[in-house]
């Protein structure tokens, strides 16, 4: 029983970790290449979810909604870049934190203005609804498996894109030394735009994918943004590989910790106290984990060499 429970929780953790990775990948690139703290990355995830909700209500099909939502999320990201973020690249981190905080306030209220404060729900696409038996007597929703598959495919594509294409090479070079890349004749402004738009689209994709299993509501991006920051800081800012491993670690630590911390504590405490402290400790685990990692490796697990 415990083994199957652990397996299900591990799958949930993997799914959560992959969603985190989709968000963190864009964030770590924007951070690494442009040295720009974008707190508004979380609202791009929210916008992705809202776009899918709106488009699937309009077209009646999740597939079409996803297809329409992705370019819209990209366009929206580029619009924000041109309107606000472009003017912040040469400012210090403090200004960036504040201005992007303003973007969060605006967009959280903005979606309330357009779609109302009540949470929206998106139906799970017909073809991916239902559950499959993955072990004897153990059912797991197909849609969650689809999220895992999509996340792994995107991760593989990103790996190829970053490590084996010209744009990827420029991005990696930009993460190590943006000024030098610019001096070598690369249009750094355009590279920034590409990276930014791509990151926004990935976050939007993550939001779109989770829309059927979570409720779509204002402020849904705020907490996941903080988790994405935890991921990129643990992974080492600017490192896609670090973000991938850290995202999976965080996903597992959080999901498995929440379900097993009370059980583990029962070994040393009486049941009532164990479930009480277990519930108290579980949400803090990832932050304890992050503090521990930064204590031993102040610039993350995979620091980008400068």
């Amino acid at each position, binding site marked *: 029983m415990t083994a199957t429970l652990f397996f299900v929780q591990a799958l949930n953790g993997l799914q959560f970790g992959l969603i985190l990775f989709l968000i963190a990948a864009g964030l770590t690139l924007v*951070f690494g290449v442009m040295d720009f*703290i974008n*707190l508004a990355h979380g609202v791009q995830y929210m916008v992705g979810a809202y776009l899918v909700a709106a488009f699937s209500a309009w077209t009646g099909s999740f597939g079409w909604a996803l297809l329409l939502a992705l370019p819209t999320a990209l366009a929206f990201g580029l619009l924000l870049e041109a309107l*606000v973020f472009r*003017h*912040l690249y040469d*400012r*210090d*981190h*403090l*200004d960036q*934190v*504040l*201005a992007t*905080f*303003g*973007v*969060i*306030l*605006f*967009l*959280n*209220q*903005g979606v*309330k*203005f357009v779609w109302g404060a009540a949470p929206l729900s998106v139906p799970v696409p017909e073809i991916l609804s239902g559950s499959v038996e993955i072990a004897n007597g153990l059912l797991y929703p197909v849609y969650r498996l689809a999220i895992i598959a999509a996340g792994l495919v995107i991760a593989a594509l990103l790996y190829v894109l970053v490590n084996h294409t010209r744009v990827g090479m420029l991005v990696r070079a930009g993460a190590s030394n943006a000024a030098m890349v610019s001096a070598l004749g690369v249009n750094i402004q355009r590279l920034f735009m590409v990276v930014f738009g791509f990151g926004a689209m990935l976050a939007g994709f993550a939001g779109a994918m989770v829309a059927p299993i979570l409720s779509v509501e204002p402020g849904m991006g*705020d907490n996941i943004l*903080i988790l994405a*920051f*935890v991921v990129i*800081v643990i992974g080492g*800012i600017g490192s896609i590989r670090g973000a991938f491993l850290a995202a999976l670690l965080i996903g597992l630590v959080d999901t498995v910790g929440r379900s097993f911390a009370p059980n583990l504590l029962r070994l040393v405490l009486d049941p009532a106290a164990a479930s*009480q402290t277990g*519930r*108290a400790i*579980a*949400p*803090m685990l990832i*932050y*304890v984990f*992050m*503090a521990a990692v*930064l*204590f031993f490796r*102040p*610039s*993350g697990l995979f620091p980008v060499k400068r």
Partner: protein
Amino acid sequence: MTEIAETHSAPSLGARLEIIPVVLFAAFAAAPLLATFSGAEGYVLSLLTRVMIFGVAAMALDLILGYGALVSFGHAAFLGLGGYAVGILASHGFEDALIQVPVALVASAAFALVTGAISLRTKGVYFIMITLAFGQMVYFLATSLAPYGGDDGMTLASRSLIAGSGWLENDFTFYWVCLLCLFAAYALSRSIVASRFGRVLRGTRENAVRMEAIGFRPFRFQLAAYVISGMMAGLAGCLLANQAEFVSPAFMTWQRSGELIFMVVLGGLGSLHGAIIGAAAFLLLEEFLPEILHTVSFFLSEETRSHLAENWKMVFGPLLILIVLFVRGGIMGLLRRSHYG
């Protein structure tokens, strides 16, 4: 971090700038008298009390942010620690501020000492993020404290007693106590900044390597400043819990930490009274922006106007961005520029 560096060069502060804190405190002292004539004295008093409490918290942050360039993105945690110290002790029958406040200060200091010692090993962006992580840790701890209200928070039976008497129940008395705390915190911060300790802190902000080269260990000074700042914010938390007669995890969301940073930057980094002015500007704007929007949009239909007032945050957000982009040095910067230019 050039902007932090240039916002204040101590010798060139004109005589007029020294007037600002005097005017500020005089205004706070005169406000209760004026509030009596305004007809809505309860409302005015509680709003201004809130301004002063956040003034203490913002000033605490300015001490490390403006003078040490340490961008702490988890300072709301200290507000929560102070608040929960009051709430938890009160629920166990310790209702006297003479017990609650020292406990809150010790708890804040201990938390600041441990988290500061870890955070200060990191630099720049990593520092911002690790302080954020510690803030979130305390936030989630509070949400899981089921005996003390969990997510919903806890209501205090009454305000804290002082040596056994319920003076603080009177809003006027509470106002004066907050003003006293604000003044004490200001005086303390001012003397810290002017001392040798403060000069080392500023030197570290400008160039940590050089400070090390001339024989200082910046880490100790930064950690001490972080602890002092945490204690001041903890005191603000005690006051906030007493004002609202309520404590909840909402005291320490990361958005609240962001608001504290905004208050300091809005007022102008590294001037202490700038942080108080920033807190006042932020809270008053938050309070009156809906009404202002309603008034200035007189040419629109009544329905659109109330819709606009309801969604005031859609104006507040862009306003924040515009302030960051165009008002360098905050309100104090504007005052300074009008003085010299």
